[in-house]
């Protein structure tokens, strides 16, 4: 005997008609079964296990992103500090040296003995 459960309290959104955006959204028998909340307790327990597994996977993924973000922020701080030091040293250079940096010219030589 199947249990009848009022699913609207559990997930009201899924019980609404799905909006059709593409071929995947067209309601078919298989789609309806997969998207519905299972009626039997066993089916619901199975779905719960899968969803909790997905949750832990997403949490691990989120932790990894947070660790990467922290690392990138740290590297960004180091680079910004370096930029600040270089700008300061260029600003402190005497004007003649500033001009020299723009002119690394080469020239041709003619040797002359006197």
């Amino acid at each position, binding site marked *: 005997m199947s249990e009848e459960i009022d699913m609207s309290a559990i997930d009201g959104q899924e019980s609404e008609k799905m909006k059709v955006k593409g071929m995947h959204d067209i309601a078919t028998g298989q789609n309806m079964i997969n998207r519905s909340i299972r009626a039997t307790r066993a089916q619901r327990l199975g779905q719960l296990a899968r969803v909790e597994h997905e949750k832990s996977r997403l949490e691990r993924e989120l932790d990894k992103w947070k660790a990467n973000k922290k690392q990138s922020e740290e590297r960004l701080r180091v680079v910004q500090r370096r930029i600040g030091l270089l700008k300061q040293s260029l600003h402190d250079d005497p004007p003649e040296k500033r001009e020299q940096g723009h002119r690394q010219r080469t020239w041709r*030589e003619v*040797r002359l003995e006197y």
Partner: protein
Amino acid sequence: MSAVARIAMEEEPTVLHVRRRADFVETQAVKDMTEGALSYLAAGFPVHFRGPAGTGKTTLALHVANQLGQPVMFIVGDEEFATSDLIGGQHGYRYRKVIDRFIHSVLKYEEDAVQRWVDQRLTTACREGFTLIYDEFTRSRAEANNIFLAILEEQLLVLPSMGRNDGYIKVHPDFRAIFTSNPREYAGVHEAQDALSDRLVTFDLDYYDRETETAIIAARSGLSLEDAGRIVNVVRDFRASGEYEQTPTLRAGIMIAKVAAFRGLRARADDARFVQTCIDLLESKGVFASSRAEERRAQQRKMLLDLVQHHCQ
């Protein structure tokens, strides 16, 4: 000149790398002069070597420039010079065409042409901090040398303002200038501006002493000091006599010595070829245009023969 060659000329200036010869004679007189000039240059003042022809002004300028250790730009004064010959000017055009098809359906096309400014030696020397030798600068008209007034005093090179962004160039702190000139009474020489002369430290050069001239002639020709000394005596006595239109200088002595060395002659009065060489190179210092030229030439020749006979026994 092709556009590519012009661009190469602009991008890579040509400088002199001066070096003393192995037989360069540096007597105490030359050392003293060099040290004096270097001290003024180190203090930031330009120096000016002034003297008659054949007194070693250009050689001394090159020697001093060599001590500074910077590349050298060499300019020779010219009556035809204008300021643009010293600083540069607009020569030709630089064309730029950009065709961008990075996105195949979009074409970006740009084309423009701008006049190209090409530096001359003075501007290059001021920008890069080279040593400038301006030889015979009084051969140029005074107005052409006006540009030096601001360079030497305010350390500023003022370029023509034809839409240039860098109309004022701060002279490089390593820029140094050495000028040479003949005295005012020489033909073809303009009087230097007082304003420019006032900015220069002038060394008046005279003919070297006998020992220095002997050493130079021996070094340049390869003759012995004894033979070189005899030639020096002939030339110096001829110079002291005043019986000439062109002053017999050290150059005449070097020419006699080099020819003698080339022909394997000794400086002897009994060597007719040597005597003829002396006559050939010294007699031409006289003038032949006047009606008394024949008589004067005969007198001069007798005097020269007497000198050779006296010093080259």
